[in-house]
């Protein structure tokens, strides 16, 4: 009777026979190198509001689609080291780009400083704290302060420098809440989950927060730098995209959305 069972379950055996065939099909699918994919740009998350808009204009003008993979600058640099198939790296700091150039992972000839970031102080809109300066963050009425993780996000680094140079780090350090990127830090404040934050002006504008601009001497310049990867799958399209990043049209957009020109 039990042997009857064996005979009556042929589907299990068919499945077993089908598996090697399916595996072969999959292996074949893996080996075909997909090279007809669109231009892929690894970009700092702080630039998402700007690049999304810029990408649409670029697609309209050139007819070439562009895909953005957003993350914090440090995380993206690490992905490039591990062989991520990006064409362009748009970094929120010069340091990461120069490191990757030194490692021959980015093409030095394509290095382009296209804008400069601005750090602002923001507060959760519903609280009515009316913060006037970084020193106010030390006040006990501010329970927590969101910044991007300084270990891998340039705006987080700038926020940490600002706290140090203002001399409030001892009082503010226990209140710090770290966002994976400056984009996340901005959302923590906008949603009211965190009282205040030090974030990018571009992010503050995109989430509808009023940002208080901080004195430039409080943090090192946040240079936004782009470059083409040394082994970019689509180098010509990548070069065209970089050219577009420095066009007058793009510069006008930067100003409107919260970035300064690279030099001044």
């Amino acid at each position, binding site marked *: 009777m039990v042997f009857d069972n064996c005979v009556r379950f042929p589907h299990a055996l068919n499945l077993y026979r089908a598996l090697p065939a399916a*595996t072969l099909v999959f292996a074949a699918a893996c080996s075909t190198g997909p090279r007809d994919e669109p231009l892929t740009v690894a970009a700092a998350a702080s630039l998402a509001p700007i690049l999304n808009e810029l990408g649409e204009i670029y697609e309209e003008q050139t007819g070439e689609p562009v895909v953005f993979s957003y993350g914090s600058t440090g995380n993206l640099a690490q992905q490039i*080291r*591990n062989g991520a198939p990006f064409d362009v790296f748009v970094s929120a700091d010069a340091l990461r780009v120069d490191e990757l150039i030194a490692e021959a992972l980015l093409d030095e000839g394509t290095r382009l400083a296209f804008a400069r970031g601005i750090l602002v102080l923001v507060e959760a809109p519903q609280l009515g704290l009316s913060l006037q300066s970084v020193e106010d963050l030390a006040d006990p009425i501010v329970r927590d302060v969101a910044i991007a993780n300084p270990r891998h996000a340039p705006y987080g680094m700038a926020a940490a420098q600002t706290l140090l140079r203002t001399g409030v780090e001892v009082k503010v350090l226990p209140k710090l809440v770290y966002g994976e990127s400056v984009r996340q830090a901005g959302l923590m404040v906008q949603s009211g989950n965190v009282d205040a934050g030090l974030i990018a002006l571009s992010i503050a504008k995109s989430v509808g927060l009023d940002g208080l601009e901080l004195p430039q001497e409080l943090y090192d310049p946040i240079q936004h730098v782009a470059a083409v990867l040394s082994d970019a799958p689509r180098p010509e399209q990548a070069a065209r995209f970089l050219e577009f990043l420095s066009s007058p049209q793009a510069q006008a957009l930067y100003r409107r959305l919260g970035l300064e020109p690279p030099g001044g």
Partner: protein
Amino acid sequence: MLTPLLLSLRVAGLATLFAIVFGVAIAALLTRRHSAPANVADAVVNLPLVLPPTVLGYYLLVLLGARSPLGAWLESVGIELVFTWQGAVVAASIVALPLVVGSTRAALEAVDPDLRDVARTLGQSNTAIFLTIMLPLAWRGLLAGGMLAFARALGEFGATLMIAGNIPGRTQTLPIAIYDSVQAGDLASANRQALLLTLVAVALLVSMRYLGSALAGRKMRDRG
């Protein structure tokens, strides 16, 4: 919204296939073995249940990345796993593997050992015994393992993000698309995507239940 879903289904489907192929083989090798090497092998297979997915993803990145000898060799033969959807399949297969091994092994060990011994006295080879007696009798365990594997693979996030990244249209599975939408503050998209994934998961679980009880019903009738 459809692209991440289709990618998720493709990744989870292939990962389930791999987990079943390797999982059944591993379960067959480990069944009724309690030697020290077998116990260590069992522990290694079950590691993905214990380790956080980010740790697994990190191991995979170190093992398969462009800077590792294995990664360089794979690239030289034209197989790119890091930051491709195939890499996501590798990650999902590994997290799903212990689920298949666990339930298949339990089902294989529940088969009456006398049947195997009888077949052996009748001159059947071990392979034939496994394919025609053990596996057909343990198919329910295999099916349950496969379902769990698919469910786990569909929800895989941490290891996938580490090894495949977040490239829209290429490696952005539905869970990663949800993460990206939340990060971007695009809560309308996040809500839609989360609802879609929930609906797909509920539909899958319900249909699996129907499939399971339909098969069980047939078995009852067969016996009667």
